[in-house]
């Protein structure tokens, strides 16, 4: 049984931990709001981009030829997985969820006899996948220094991916990230990047366009940009999701610390009372003996 002094120390230390988790929760809440705003502000661009792309893809499908980035190069042998995670831990199952999805995917692909290459974005994903698939990781990007994710960051990653595609290093590219559904729910998602998944064209948007310079040229410009936009969006959703997960995790931790303090305090009081009673009995029985 721990002595009274041990218990007192224990309570003090848990209280200190609780203060830290509480502070982390509040920081995450503030950052979450900013990340959410950024994710929402980026939405119009990617929505319009999807609409325009679907439209133009339809126009090009009638004749001409679409760039390989969009239709793929016809092969399905080497897969590149871009795994985007957070750079920091302490956010519940956020990072491991993404890593697990990627790992399932890798297992499935290798069982089918495909070759897999991995590009990780964010430190945690690299740390987790390194254990099992170190030889598959061909490149990694860290965004630890970046405070607010800008389009330039995503563009850089997109350029790397495209350069590797052009060099024929892989045939199919899939992006892994966590979709931000709500503060308490993030859904790990696998999204095909190359070949691009084109959405359905909206009704009524089938106006006959004129293209300047030409549909093929615009598409050639548009598709790489679309990849950057998708990565950008994934990074923003990840940032918001990370903060949401961190907030929930830290809230839980604060509550657990509270429960622990309560329990320890009861034990402490009981022991103190027991000791007082014991001392009283000693005094009284000593007095009676006289």
């Amino acid at each position: 049984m721990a002595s009274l002094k041990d218990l007192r120390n224990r309570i003090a230390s848990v209280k200190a931990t609780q203060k830290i988790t509480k502070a982390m929760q509040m920081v995450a809440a503030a950052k979450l709001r900013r990340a959410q705003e950024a994710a929402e502000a980026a939405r119009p661009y990617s929505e319009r981009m999807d609409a325009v792309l679907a439209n133009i893809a339809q126009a090009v499908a009638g004749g001409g030829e679409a760039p390989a980035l969009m239709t793929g190069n016809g092969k399905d042998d080497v897969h590149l997985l871009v795994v985007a995670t957070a750079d920091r831990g302490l956010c519940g199952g956020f990072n491991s969820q993404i890593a697990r999805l990627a790992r399932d995917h890798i297992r499935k692909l290798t069982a089918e006899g495909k070759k897999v290459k991995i590009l990780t974005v964010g430190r945690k994903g690299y740390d987790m996948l390194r254990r099992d698939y170190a030889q598959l990781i061909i490149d990694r990007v860290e965004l630890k220094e970046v405070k607010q994710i800008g389009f330039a960051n995503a563009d850089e990653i997109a350029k790397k991916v495209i350069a590797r595609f052009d060099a024929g290093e892989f045939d199919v590219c899939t992006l892994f990230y966590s979709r931000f559904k709500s503060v308490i729910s993030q859904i790990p998602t696998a999204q095909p990047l190359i070949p691009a998944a084109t959405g359905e064209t909206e009704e009524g948007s089938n106006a006959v366009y004129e293209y300047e310079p030409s549909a093929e040229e615009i598409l050639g410009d548009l598709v790489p940009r679309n990849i950057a936009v998708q990565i950008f969006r994934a990074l923003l959703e990840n940032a918001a999701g990370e903060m949401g997960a961190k907030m929930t995790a830290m809230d839980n931790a604060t509550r657990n610390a509270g429960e622990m303090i309560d329990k320890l305090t009861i034990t402490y009081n009981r022991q103190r009372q027991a000791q007082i009673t014991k001392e009283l009995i000693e005094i009284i029985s000593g007095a009676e003996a006289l």
Partner: protein
Amino acid sequence: MAESFKFELVSPERLLISEEVEQVIIPGTDGEMTVMASHAPIMTTIKPGVVTVKPVSGGEQRYAVFGGFADILPQGCTLLAESAVPADRLDRAELQKRIDDARHKAEHAEDLDERSRAELYLHQLTTLEGALIPA
């Protein structure tokens, strides 16, 4: 008063403007063009340059854009810019950095095709600089 149409300027980071305008001047890759209401549907890439917007509410707004493309329909116009800032808030150092980058790229290009593309981009940037800085 001229007819108005809906104009939206979006960059990946945010929606810069979305309002009814009378006319917009867009720096298309194949030349500047003025878009007014009921324009025939056209889609064009844009080069770095200045977008001039005349909203219905009067006045005139200028934005510096760095590449992207425009989707023009009779009922509205959407400009998807790679990066866009109000012209009066353009960071001069930032622009200079882009110019230096472009120059570096032009000088170190590996083949002729790449060099001519880089030089074109550099030229467009310096034109943009010339258009903005004295203003």
